[in-house]
């Protein structure tokens, strides 16, 4: 049984055509999916449509869910795969130049460096747009990896379990991603 609802009971009721069971599942899974979509996709990427797409996939594949792990874990994997597929369809930026940044983003860049003021909600949005621009230079898997480590605080073992990659491969990829991000940041600083 998952934390908030009796998933097995909901699934049984949904199979019998009970719509309220589907509603319960949607309300239960929404925060899980919303968090993953918000982390792994850029800010302006039709969030609501993606969440709905993931929910549709979830319901159409319910027969594959064996119940040996919490449903939220199973749906998280599905959500992450969908986000990665969506990112793969987008073009990877070759680089980010200082002139690509909006004045608000350059301000966020400086604020991150000097810590000049306490960030408010608007600063957070500008900083996010800048983060999205920096991440858009990375391949989808690398982008997802750095966010899992630096933002979600997941351990290498956890990532290894969910991706099937070996620890050394993850470390190698992380090193490569950090090097590339560092280079991008240095380029921005030189041109600022």
């Amino acid at each position, binding site marked *: 049984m998952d934390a908030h609802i009796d998933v097995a009971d909901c699934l049984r009721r949904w199979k019998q055509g009970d719509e309220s069971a*589907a509603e319960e599942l949607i309300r239960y899974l*929404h925060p899980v999916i919303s968090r993953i979509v918000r982390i792994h996709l850029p800010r302006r990427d039709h969030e609501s449509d993606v*969440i*709905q797409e993931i929910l549709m996939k979830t*319901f159409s594949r319910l027969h594959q869910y064996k119940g040996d792990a919490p449903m939220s874990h199973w749906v998280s994997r599905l959500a992450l795969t969908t986000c990665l597929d969506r990112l793969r369809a987008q073009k990877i930026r070759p680089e980010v130049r200082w002139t690509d940044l909006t004045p608000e983003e350059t301000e966020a860049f400086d604020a991150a460096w000097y810590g000049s003021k306490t960030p408010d909600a608007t600063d957070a949005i500008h900083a996010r747009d800048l983060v999205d621009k920096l991440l858009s230079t990375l391949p989808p898997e690398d982008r997802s990896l750095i966010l899992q480590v630096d933002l979600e605080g997941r351990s290498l073992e956890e990532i290894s379990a969910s991706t099937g990659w070996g620890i050394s491969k993850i470390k190698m990829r992380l090193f490569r991603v950090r090097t590339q991000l*560092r280079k991008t940041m240095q380029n921005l*600083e030189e041109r600022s």
Partner: protein
Amino acid sequence: MNTIPPDDKKWQALLAMSAPTFTGDDTPAFGFVTSTLARLKAEKGERDMFERIGLRALFASLVVLVGVVGFSAGLQLQERLDLEPSVNSLAQAEDIPIA
């Protein structure tokens, strides 16, 4: 001593600054559940319809197959019973019963 390079610190600072934008919503937006349920219902209806059409098509093709097999078996049996005209007349003249 293991020190974090300044650019990594800057990256971490940017992530920390933008952290509130990465938080998911606990509750769906107004109308989201209704529209998702409607879409779910429509897709389920479509799937059921395709299943029904598929079952009917399968049944119809089985009926056709049985018909064709029956017809060709009948033809074969007929051919076996059709004897040469000379053999047929001889059988009639001698009053030989043909099974």
